[in-house]
């Protein structure tokens, strides 16, 4: 499911349940979901850069 589709359906559900005030939170959750999905979590951890070791 795309984030836009999810947000549309979540906001419609919030409306249906009379939870108008939830909609701004769902918008912020959509932004966070976008950030979670866009980050390169699969990349291996790089070794410490030179000079990083105490």
């Amino acid at each position, binding site marked *: *499911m795309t984030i836009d589709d*999810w947000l549309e359906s979540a906001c419609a559900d919030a409306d249906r349940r009379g939870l108008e005030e939830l909609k701004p939170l769902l918008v912020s959750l959509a932004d*966070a979901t976008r950030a979670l*999905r866009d*980050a390169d979590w699969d990349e291996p*951890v790089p070794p*410490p850069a030179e000079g990083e070791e105490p």
Partner: protein
Amino acid sequence: MTAPLHFHTITELAPLIAAGHVSSEALTRACLEEIEAHDRTLNAFITVLGASAITQARELDAEIAAGTCRGPLHGIPVSLKDLIDQQGVPTTAASRVREGHVAAADAPVTARLRAAGAVLIGKTNLHEFAFGTTSDDTAFGAVRNPHDPSRSPGGSSGGSAVAIVTGMSVASIGTDTGGSIRIPSAACGTVGLKPAWGEVPCEGVVPLSRSLDHVGPLARSVADAWLIYLVLRGEATAARWPLPAPRAIKGLRLGVPRHYFHDVLDDEVRARFAACLAWLRQAGAETADVTIRHAPGVAPVYLHASLPEAAAYHADSLMSAPERYTKNVRLRLEMGRYVLAEDYVRAQAARAVLRSEVDAALAGCDALVLPTLPIPAPPIGASTVDVAGTPQAVRSMMLRMTQLFNLTGHPAVSIPMGETAAGLPCGLQLAGRLNDTEGLLATAAACEPFVNA
């Protein structure tokens, strides 16, 4: 000793109690008097257990008179965050949802404290269901910061930190799912320890997000936190008392993660942190910058890991009694019901990456050091604060430095690092290796004398 006895540390009080020079009853009565005098303003307690605490203290004094001392916690007044079960006492979680609840049994941590001789003086106020960082969304009135009652004490274990600072209890037990022990410790000027995940049992404690929840001590010194941690972990402290002398500061290796963590920082907090590092280096510690590459992604990961777990626990009550929650907590719990399963799984995978990165950052040092809070205690009810000329969301700011170590499970402790010009405390956070909470405490104890100027 110049301050009244009930403002002293466990380390100072324990030998006096053991020798019969100070009675637990006198100490307990002094704490109860502070509660009576100040709690109408500060709202630190939900339930005060005056009569049972006095009875318990008298019994413990009688044991001393008969030649028995259970250990350093013998006769020490300790408060419990009101998320933790104590037999026969309500566990409100600061919520009307829990009206009528009375705990059938002690939580394991409560039973361990009781067995170690702690006097259970009362249950402290918190952010409702521990789901917030400011302790103002609560059915029992906002908790107030004793350094400035117009400001938050931090949260969610706000009442616990206030109780220690004001002499209402000598130590307290809190919980920490995103920073809820360390945040109020920094905002109020106490020591707060989040042990490594899984070390201290969470049974009998109302959960927030089970894979992120931790139980730990708030106290007046690292040594006090250490002693309580041993008890919570199930060790007999009598055998470990006194604790070994602090390790030498000279040669201590401290890693400083600046990327992301120093991007948004109050000017005074930044200056205090810089001064602390300078003092530690002057004393012989070595510091070097380290990088946690995915740190900027921590907040979205935390959100997707924590919200569904919280929503799952509250699903029935959200359906049957939604009006009993405070508005903000209800809305955030409802938000959790919309997180997709696939994103919860993504968050779990991201946690593994973050854990590896923190392990790597710790590989060459004894601990990571960073401010506990990027801002001083915010005004009660504020949703944004100005940081270096830019408005920032209070909730994001409060969690920014701490939530990483809930995601990864590494132990972390906040110790006082002085105050702002307005007299608001700042906290220095140290994070240590997995499965080495005592190593972290030894490092924190070495740093403690040098950073609270």
